[in-house]
């Protein structure tokens, strides 16, 4: 076991949501966006009125989409709101059943050849679960071409309060070990780490016992944003991923999420495509919970289950630091969703007219070692070239600077604005 930490960042004194992962009852209607990954949208292969089974292919493309419930297709629309504020094609299904017929095969996934396993992963439409949702098969192929030597399983919940990985490490130990074995096999490497956030010594010992011989356990300090791949790689191997456009694969490491490893095991063992997703629902809800939700369940259904009061101010998909605020509760839970964070109107962030007082707190917390206050001041007045000379594009938008700013300057807002303007000028 080794320990790891990062420079900068924030130590939140927030308890992670605990409790076993409950299964959320399936709603009466689900909506399945045809793009739940980074890349182009899939094509619908079903028509309105058609009956579908659980796990049936309904969208074909680089990352296929499968029906997560059994029922009748009620709509195939081109424009459905997505979590980024745009529109994507989607398929609505009226639910008639939710049973998944297990392919009770006695197959040992670890005995599959690398190519066979990769083929299944691609067909199952697996993504690396997080807000970016990179296609997993593509990611593995890229890692192979880069000759990656090290696999890091990211069992650190990135956002403060989210308790999915922590809970999965307790509930799904066998599947995790299996998933790591398969991924090592597919990638053809021997060196693997399982990164978890420090918890009680007893839990750590149990996990270490479970993964011994498969992966080395790395315990990270409870600091945000150590769960971002870049910083995880630095904390574990000491190598810095080149900025601004480098990837962990460039320094010979591939980082794959913990839940992804579990779903790889499920997909290979039982041919089960990802039909559900574990999420944490917390913030201003009556019962903060870890839930297993059918993909396609509208946020509204999830929130009704957890109970929310009348005056919600913000519904955030992802988490309080890097999450995306939503304007509609019709938006479904997708492969990109890790958590839902609810805020009351009284808890919303404030913006003051105060100018920067040069305190340097943002410089102290910036994990990218940038000068956020200077970059954001340049962006604010439209001097994007100057902002770029202070490495605007290096910013990962983790939000640490805006969190600590005593003047309540929306630094991340200005930085995102600057980035988008530079992109526009380049076009």
């Amino acid at each position, binding site marked *: 076991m080794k320990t790891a930490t990062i420079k900068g960042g924030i130590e939140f004194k927030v308890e992670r949501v605990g409790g076993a992962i409950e299964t959320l009852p399936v709603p009466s209607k689900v909506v399945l966006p045809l793009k739940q990954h980074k890349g182009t949208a899939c094509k619908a292969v079903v028509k309105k009125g058609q009956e579908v089974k659980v796990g049936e292919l309904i969208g074909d493309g680089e990352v296929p989409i499968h029906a997560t419930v059994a029922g009748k297709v009620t709509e195939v629309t081109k424009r459905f709101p997505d979590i980024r504020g745009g529109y994507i094609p989607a398929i609505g299904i009226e639910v008639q059943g939710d049973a998944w017929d297990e392919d009770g095969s006695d197959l040992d996934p670890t005995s599959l050849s690398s190519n066979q396993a990769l083929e299944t992963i691609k067909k199952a439409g697996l993504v690396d679960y997080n807000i970016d949702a990179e296609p997993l098969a593509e990611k593995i192929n890229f890692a192979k071409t880069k000759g990656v030597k090290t696999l890091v399983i990211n069992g650190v919940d990135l956002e403060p309060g989210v308790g999915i990985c922590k809970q999965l490490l307790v509930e799904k130990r066998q599947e995790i070990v299996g998933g790591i074995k398969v991924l090592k096999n597919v990638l053809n490497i021997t060196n693997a780490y399982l990164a978890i956030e420090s918890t009680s010594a007893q839990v750590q010992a149990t996990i270490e016992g479970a993964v011994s011989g498969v992966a080395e356990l790395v315990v990270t300090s409870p600091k945000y944003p150590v769960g971002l791949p870049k910083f995880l790689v630095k904390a574990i191997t000491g190598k810095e991923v080149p900025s601004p456009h480098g990837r962990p694969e460039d320094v010979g490491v591939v980082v794959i999420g913990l839940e992804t490893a579990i779903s790889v095991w499920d997909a290979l063992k039982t041919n089960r495509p990802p039909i559900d997703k574990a999420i944490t629902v917390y913030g201003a809800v009556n019962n903060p919970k870890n839930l297993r939700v059918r993909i396609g369940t509208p946020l509204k259904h999830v929130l009704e289950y957890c109970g929310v009061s009348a005056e919600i101010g913000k519904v955030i998909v992802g988490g309080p630091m890097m999450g995306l605020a939503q304007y*509609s509760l019709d938006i479904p839970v997708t492969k990109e969703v890790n958590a839902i964070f609810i805020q009351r109107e009284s808890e919303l*962030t404030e913006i003051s007219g105060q100018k920067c007082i040069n305190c340097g707190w943002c410089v102290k917390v910036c994990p990218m070692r940038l000068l956020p206050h200077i970059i954001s001041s340049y962006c604010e007045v439209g001097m994007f070239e100057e902002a770029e000379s202070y490495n605007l594009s290096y910013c990962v938008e983790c939000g640490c600077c805006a969190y600590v700013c005593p003047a309540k300057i929306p630094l991340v807002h200005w930085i995102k604005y600057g980035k988008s303007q530079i992109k526009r000028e380049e076009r």
Partner: protein
Amino acid sequence: MKDKGFVVSVGPHIQGRESIPRIVYGVVIAILPAIIAGVYFFKMEAVKVIVAALVSAIVFDALLQKLICKKVDLTNGHALLMGLLFATIMPIGVPWWAVAAGVFVGLLVGEYVYGGFGNNPFNPVIVGWAALKLSYPGYLSVASSVLGVLKLEGISAIVEDYGYFSDAYGVENWSTLGGKLKLLGKILLGWKAGAWGDHLFGCVGCICALAILIGAAFLFIKRYISWYAPVGFLATILFFSLVFYKGDKQYLYPFVLIQLFSGSTLLAAFFFVTDFATTPFTGLGMFIFGVMAGLVTMLGRLWGKWVDPVWFAILVANAFTPLIDRFVRPKPFGRVKSSV
């Protein structure tokens, strides 16, 4: 449950609890021990200066806010802090009108001409002090404080001729560790009047080192200040007073104590060298700033004409802040030397 009308914005969606008014009030609380010690040691003389500084700071702050067409807002505690900090660095005996004039110049020239709180390149408190020092040097002279006597007559005069440490503190000998600690402890509790003057003299907030250290500890616990600048500043002063000491070996210890704990050294180290707006923002930059201020201070104390050039040193270092910030930058994460 409503299902529309939600607020949409970019992250982060939560903010830390600290805000500028909280920090300002935090520093106000931290300076209170020094103020209370000043009142305890100087009685009415200190009260006069403090009241004059406070009242004039509040009045002039409101006036200047009105003048630059801002909404008059005194709730952020800024005027309070300006008044208290200004009072701490005034020697006793400064007339009330001089205090008021200093506060006014400090606020106007040191701060409001640059657009108000946070935009000022020089510490407004020290700008006010500088204006008084130039206009009424007599009132601001600290020649009859311990540091002044040390400067004018030397350390051996203090120890031997005036018998300062034996008379005021009852410590005859500091060759042993016990004696050293005893002297240190007594000096931390406060400076005392020497035989060269009939009553105690000093600046309102600088007379009791312990009170300043208590305030500094509070600031450290709240993380409002970091250690870089104070350490750079105090280490430079210590280094110079050890290396360039020219007197008798046995008086080195009291000499160092006077350099570190008398005059405005400690107050500057924890309340002025750590000021947000006028000092660099990187750790290394803060350290360099501290060293620079310490350097100018000790050059003045050892070889210059000024008795206690701490404030002057900070003004000089303030002028270098933009330069330090320009050259001392952290290396961004993952920067690679371009191969092109």
